[in-house]
Each structure stands twice: as C-alpha cells, then as structure tokens.
C-alpha cells in the first residue's frame, strides 16, 4: 500500500512537472525546448546507466554493447508504432486520444523490450556459460554487427534512417520509466536473487560452491538489463521521432560505461549521478566537443588508478548518512575488506 501511494505520488509529481515544463499547465510558464530535451535525454541515459549497472556493477560481468540492445528496442518499438499504430487507432475509436497514445506507446515499448531481451538471451547464453571476459568482446562485436544488419533492413529505412515516428514519448513517460527502472533494479538487488548476483561478482567459484547456478543468474541479469536498454531505445525513438544507426555506435555504449564507472559500479544512485553528470558535462562543454571523448577516456584511466570504485563506489547516496549514524551509535567500524 505504501509503495502504491508512493508510485501514485511520483506519477502526479511527474505529470505536474511535465505540465510546467511544456507550458500546458500554466500558460506562459515553461522551460526552453532545449532544456526540456536535455532533461528528457538525461532520463533515457538514467535508464541505460542503471540497467547496465545491473549486469556490469552488480553481477560483475562486463557488457560493452548496451547501445546494440538499445538499437534493437528502438527499431522494434518504432516499427510497431509505424505499422500497427493507425490500425489500433481505427480499431478503438471510442478511446480518447491520450489513452490511445499511451496504449500504442506501451505496446511498442513492450515489443521493443521483448526483442532486446531475446537478443540478450542469444548473446548471453554462449558467452556467460564461461568465466572470463568473453561477454565484453561478444557484446562489442554484437553492437557493431547489429548496426550493419539494421542498416540493411529496408523496412526500417536502412541507411536513410527511420523517420516519421509519432512523438508518443514525453518527459513524463521517460521519467516514469526511469523511476520504474530504478525501482526494479533496486528490488532485484535487494532480493535473494540479487544477493546471488553480488556473490557472483565477488567470487564466482565460491558462489558456485555455495550452490548458486551462476550461468542462470548471470543470463537472467543480462536479459533483464538488455530489456531495459530496449525500453530506453523505444523511448529514444518516440521522443526524437527519427532513428539512425549512427546513434547506436560503440561510442554510445562506451558513454554509458563512462557514466556508470564515474558514478560507481554497483551503486544505483551512482549511476543516476553519473548519467546526469555526463549529460551536464557534455552540454556544458559543447565548444570543446572534439576533445570531449579524449577527456572522458583519460578520466576513465586516471579514475581506475586513483579511485577504481568511482564517486560513490558500492554505496548509495542516501545510505551515506545512515551508515555514518549507525556506525557512530553502536557497532565498531567493520574491518576493511581485504582483496585477495
């Protein structure tokens, strides 16, 4: 009941903000479309970063092809809307416009998520059966190959790009899904299944010895993460109304990795912080756009040397204060973790 109320309150606040930002609530009060777009893209990046953190940060398996799954979700969802959107509209003429829009968007996102999850399964099973960094190289290859394939499918525009996608996603929808992603990842990580994921991250052999089916856990985590990337892709397409494979190169994947590494692998609030920081820095340093990736790559190397855990490490932002208080009150500080 408490969770339901919280969700309802969140939706109400988001609706209010959406109205304020777009100027539909009070006439004359709005923010510039430029900032609205940045805020919305930041929301999509939050979904991408938090979902990638599930597999990279919490499960400890390195995926570097998140943009590939995003592309599948984006194209899958856009294809659904472009092909079936009008048919759904004419089949249900009684429904109001808003309800129809939402219905079509949700349907499209569901298809996009399912397709991305399927691809995640196909990629994950062969590479996650093994220990080691195979997932990294397989996902890198997958991300590049899938682009070539999409480029050669004429039904989704091929090299011309996919245009004419109706604008169904908005600030409101993007942040609803960002909040949902955060909630789902939080619940997963704090469940008994989540603890098996963390056990795998800490020591795979020990986890297996304790009876964890490591392959199964890793694949589930990877599939969930891919599905969320698919949702992010679907929102991306329905927000910008145009898709081109150039938006989903390995550079996009690396950007998401930079976000979660800066924020802290294994910290949900860290990923959110990383995503927002990344977007902020990218937009703030527009004049130096050509040096941007150079700086970020250097940052990645230096960060690994001086602070490999990122800004927040495994901690969560709100937990910082709580832990401090608890430690002072009763128990002595836990011994530092000794790395083997």
């Amino acid at each position: 009941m408490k969770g339901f109320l919280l969700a309802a309150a969140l939706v109400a606040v988001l609706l209010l903000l959406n109205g304020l930002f777009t100027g539909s609530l009070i006439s004359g009060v709005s923010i510039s479309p430029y900032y609205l777009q940045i805020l919305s893209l930041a929301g999509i990046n939050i979904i991408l970063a938090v979902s990638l953190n599930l597999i990279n940060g919490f499960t400890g398996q390195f995926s570097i092809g998140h943009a590939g799954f995003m592309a599948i979700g984006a194209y899958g969802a856009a294809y659904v809307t472009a092909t079936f959107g009008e048919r759904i509209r004419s089949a249900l003429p009684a429904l109001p416009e808003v309800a129809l829009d939402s219905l079509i968007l949700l349907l499209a996102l569901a298809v996009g998520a399912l397709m991305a999850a399927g691809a995640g399964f196909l990629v994950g099973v062969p590479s996650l059966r093994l220990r080691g960094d195979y997932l990294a190289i397989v996902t890198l290859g997958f991300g590049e190959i899938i682009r070539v394939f999409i480029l050669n499918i004429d039904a989704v525009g091929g090299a011309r790009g996919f245009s004419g996608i109706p604008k169904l996603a908005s600030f409101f929808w993007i942040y609803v899904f960002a909040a949902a992603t955060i909630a789902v990842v939080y619940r997963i990580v704090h469940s008994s299944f989540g603890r098996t994921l963390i056990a795998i991250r800490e020591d795979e052999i020990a986890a297996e010895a304790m009876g964890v089916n490591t392959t199964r856990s890793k694949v589930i985590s990877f599939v969930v993460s891919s599905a969320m990337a698919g949702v992010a892709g679907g929102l991306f397409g329905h927000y910008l109304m145009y898709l081109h494979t150039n938006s989903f190169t390995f550079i996009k994947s690396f950007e998401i990795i930079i976000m979660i590494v800066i924020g802290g692998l294994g910290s949900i609030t860290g990923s959110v912080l990383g995503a927002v920081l990344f977007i902020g820095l990218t937009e703030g340093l527009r004049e130096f756009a050509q040096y941007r990736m150079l700086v970020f790559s250097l940052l990645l190397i230096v960060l690994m040397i001086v602070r490999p855990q990122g800004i927040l490490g495994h901690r969560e932002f709100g937990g910082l204060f709580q832990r401090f208080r608890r430690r002072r009150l009763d128990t002595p500080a836990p011994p530092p973790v000794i790395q083997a």
Partner: protein
Amino acid sequence: MNGLSLGSIYALIALGYTMVYGVLRLINFAHGDVYMVGAYTGYYLSRKLKGDEPSLLAALLVMLGAMLACALLGVIIERFAYRPVRRASRLSLLITAIGVSLFLENAAQLLFGADPKFFPSLAPRTDFILGGVRITSEQLTVIGVSVLLMLALRFFILKTRTGKAMRAVSFNQDAAKLMGISTDRIIAITFALGSALAAAAGVLIGMQIPKIDPLMGILYGLKAFVAAVLGGIGNIPGAVVGGLLIGNSEVMVVGYLSSTYRDAIAFAILILVLLLRPQGIFGRVQKEKV
C-alpha cells in the same frame, strides 16, 4: 590468395592479443588501436622517406620505423595505464583497457583527422599468374613478411632466455617471480613485441588496402581477437591458424554470399567457438584453482 594475405594480417594482430592474454589474462582492447597507430606511423614515414621511385629500402625502413614506434607505444601503455592497476580487480584492468582504446581512437582523430587517408605504394608492383590464379606482389609481400615475423617470434620464444622467461611468466606469474625473473620487464617486453607485430600488420594492410582511418582498429582488432580465441587464447601457433581461418572464411563469405555479411562471419564463428569448444582448437582446458 586474398584470404591468405588477409588471414596473415589477422594472425599478426592475434599474436599480440594472445601473448598479452598469456601473461596478464587481460583482453587488451587497445591492441586494435595500436595496429591503427602502426598504419598511421607507416603512412607518415613513407610520405617522408619515399623518393620518386618506390624502393625496397624505403619500404623496409618504413616497416621497421612503425614497428619501433609502436613497440614504444605498447611499453608506454603498459607502464602508465596497466601496471598501476595490475594488482587491482580484473574489472579495473578491463575498464582501463577500454579507456586506453578510446583514448587512442580519439587522439588519432584529432591528430590525424577523421577522414580516411590513402597509403602511398611503397614497393614496385607486379602481378604473377600462377596456375590461373592472379597473385599481386603486395599479397606475396604480406604473406612473406608475416611468415618471416612469425618464424622470428617462434625462435625468440622457444630459443632465447627472455622467451623462456616469458613462457614461465605466462605459466605461473608468482612462481616465475620467485625464480628471480623480473616479471615487470617480461610483461613490458611482451607488450613491445605484440605492438610491433600489430604495427607490421598495420603497414602491411596499408600496402594491400590503401585506405586507413582512425577507427579501423576496432573491427580488425575484434576479428583478430576472434582468431585468437578460435586458435585457443594464450596459444601462439593457435593464433596463426585462427587468423588464417578467419581471413579465409571472410573472403569466402564475400565471394559466395554477400559483402554485407563480411563482418558478421567472424562474430558467428566466435559464438560457435564459445558454444562448442571454448578453449579453442589448440587450447587446453584449464583447471580452476581457488
């Protein structure tokens, strides 16, 4: 013939992957980019050195210069990026490798420009017809130089003291250290060797397909890695066989199916290898130690 020469190039790059993996258990993501830097060094050197007539001496100098420059680059990367995090978790090492790779790609785009460049031809070219098959002198050079380099590598690893030390480090790093081997030095040498081979591959590809761009290292690196896995990662003859197999299957796919799928075949092979024989053709199943 096309397949053989393309395969030799993959093999040369794959050797670097497999050697570094052997000593550090690290997928060196930056290796493909070192190959790209090799191609560019070759490009600038050959524009400097080239007279009016293409000469063999200039070609040799270009090749050696590029190899030397990249060996240095490899050592620098190892010293300043990988060594500080070597004792940290495997994940930090991997992230560092990705960081180095991104850095090289973006630095190259700034330094060399993002547009592709065209490699000048170095050696005089003649075509031979052998039993109805057309062979260009470039292809012969590529294959000849690759074979020479691989034999030299084999000699170095099997017959010299440093090579023996390298095998020891790859077998068990801690034990090698206890035996008085300077593991830091050996790892640096491994990076130098691997990078020099990648540079040679870069110059050779410049001779054969004279278009080079700052992002060329990604796809070649990926395929060479697949070659290393196919042959059995950590296994040096395996890398060569894997490279030749990947090169040939790619040329066959282009010839019989469609050039659209030329990049997909390596990926399909990788998935199949991981499913059916993850240790590769020549690899042994490694026992896990706790």
